[in-house]
């Protein structure tokens, strides 16, 4: 930025930078606690008081059986719901970004609504539906609930990514004799795939982490967050921190990988 720089101006500038830095540090305070306490050797059932450094928890990340089962259950739910929601949501996103049609305003509104409804209303209303149907709440109802909020999320994320897409490329492919189906798989799909993958990753994370909606629709099922909440009164094993840190590490690795692929694409094109 150009313009005259005075002493007062540069002091203000540095004050703002330091403020921003403090905000960034604030974001990491609980993360430091979570990762740090994964190396703690707790006395008793509660891993909240620092005792001594140990690698034992990381050597046995699945040392707590009930916790591991709940974690696996969460992964299964996230895998199924993300697969379904990504397909359904991406179709919606393509329809909204690609075509102009009657009723698109109402459809947009319907898609935004679930994201502007408090989770407790989503969770409790869906639970009343299952009560009304006399359906026992468990694995299936949780998957249904997750797909519901993921569909909206995927549709909006993919639509935002697809907005800048040059649809005349499709026209070009068809002018050169490609069938619409071939055009989609050879031209459109590869170009919008990164947006779809990013949306799928984020909605996988949303499912894995969801607590409020899941609590209302899980019945006796235990997911990772539900198990932590349910057992918190009695125990808080260090494996919770280990698994949480591992999820964090994997997410960061995937994010960095995605960024590197993205920048390589930009360079090559």
């Amino acid at each position, binding site marked *: 930025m150009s*313009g005259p720089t005075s002493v007062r101006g540069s002091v203000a500038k540095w004050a703002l930078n330091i*403020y921003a830095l403090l905000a960034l540090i604030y974001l990491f305070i609980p993360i430091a606690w979570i990762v740090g306490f994964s190396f703690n050797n707790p006395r008793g059932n509660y891993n909240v008081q620092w005792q001594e450094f140990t690698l034992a928890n990381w050597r046995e990340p699945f040392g707590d059986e009930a916790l591991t089962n709940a974690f696996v259950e969460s992964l299964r739910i996230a895998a199924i719901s993300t697969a379904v929601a990504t397909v359904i949501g991406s*179709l919606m996103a393509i329809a909204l970004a690609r075509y102009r049609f009657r009723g698109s305003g109402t459809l947009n509104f319907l898609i935004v609504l679930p994201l502007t409804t408090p*989770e407790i209303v989503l969770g409790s209303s869906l639970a009343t539906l299952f009560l009304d149907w006399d359906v026992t709440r468990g694995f299936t109802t949780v998957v249904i609930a997750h797909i519901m909020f993921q569909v909206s999320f995927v549709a909006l994320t993919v639509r935002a990514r697809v907005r800048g897409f040059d649809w005349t490329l499709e026209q070009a492919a068809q002018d050169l004799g490609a069938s619409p189906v071939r055009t989609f798989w050879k031209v459109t799909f590869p170009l919008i795939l990164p947006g779809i993958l990013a949306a799928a990753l984020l909605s996988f994370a949303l499912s894995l*982490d969801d607590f409020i909606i899941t609590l209302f629709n899980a019945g006796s099922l235990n997911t990772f967050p539900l198990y932590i909440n349910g057992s918190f009164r009695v125990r808080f094993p260090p494996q919770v921190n280990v698994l949480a840190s591992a999820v964090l590490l994997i997410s960061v690795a995937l*994010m*960095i990988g995605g960024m590197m692929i993205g920048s390589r694409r930009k360079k090559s094109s």
Partner: protein
Amino acid sequence: MTAVSTQDAPERVRRPELVGLAALAGAGVLLAAVGARWFTGPLAVVALALVLAAIIWLVFTAVAGGPEARRRIAPYGLLKPGTLWLALFYLAPLVTLLRLSLSTLPSRFAVEAEFSWEFQNYVDAFTDFGPQFQRAFLYAAVATVLTIAIGYPLAYVIAFRGGRYRSLLLGLVVVPFFTSYLIRTIAWRSLLNDNGEIVRFLDAVRLSGLFESIGIMDNGRILQTPVAVIGGLTYNFLPFMILPIYVSLEKVDPRLVDAAQDLYSTSTAAFRRVVLPLSMPGVFAGTLLTFIPAAGDFVNAFYLGSPSTTMIGNSIQDQFLVQNNVPLASAMSFVLMAIITVLVLIYSKYFGTEDLS
């Protein structure tokens, strides 16, 4: 884009987009009605058959019609699965919630509620849980203001001074939120504990007296005070504020600021009259994304608060899952949603922008 293809074949289907729209809307409404059990027994079977017929009609029109008809009907076909899912698992539950909120439990231990236009549930929701409603909206409002105060400068610095490290810095903002929401809140609980790191640090640097006098600490403790609950809400919803503000700041052309300064505007005035108005859509979206979930949250109040800081989410959760008073919990949920909707409508009228997403 609308008039791409030429009419080389005579159209076999008239007004295909109307077929598509009718099939989509009709199937959605019918499925929501069946889900909410407006139709029961044979009527429900008829309604489901109609939903199926609408789908077949759509497919048939696409197959029988020419390429132009297919192109016009395509968006409705693509939207169909998602719309039906939302009709059945978003719209129908809200209708059921409303119906159950007007029902009564025949006895204290009954599971099945009976619909009876029971408005008493709403009276109870307001009279018995007034303080919880007030706290929910008060805490959520304070937390939203705090997320703007913390998040805006951070988004600003990343957008305008981040340079080539922009995406790295933005990544750093997102990273903490790849750990579980619940565990992050438990982390704060442990950190704010009476003999936890933060209270001990404040005691050591003799700041606890000051914090006590401005109301941040209460009898030497932070945990189980409103401050802890609001702090937790602020922390947990911060990225929902930072990201939209960043997105709108990123779109601001820095040359606009240069232009303002070339015209002898001070940098403060340039910010106030150029950057700030252009970033308002981000602040608007961030406010909705923070305030709405914060008002319905019960995790922070449960882990960081005390019985005197419970929010309406705690009460709904308790009535629904512990006391098994589903009608009352439904009425409370419905009131929460109604108040939020009204607040959002008022807010969008005064600060709203066209582009929400």
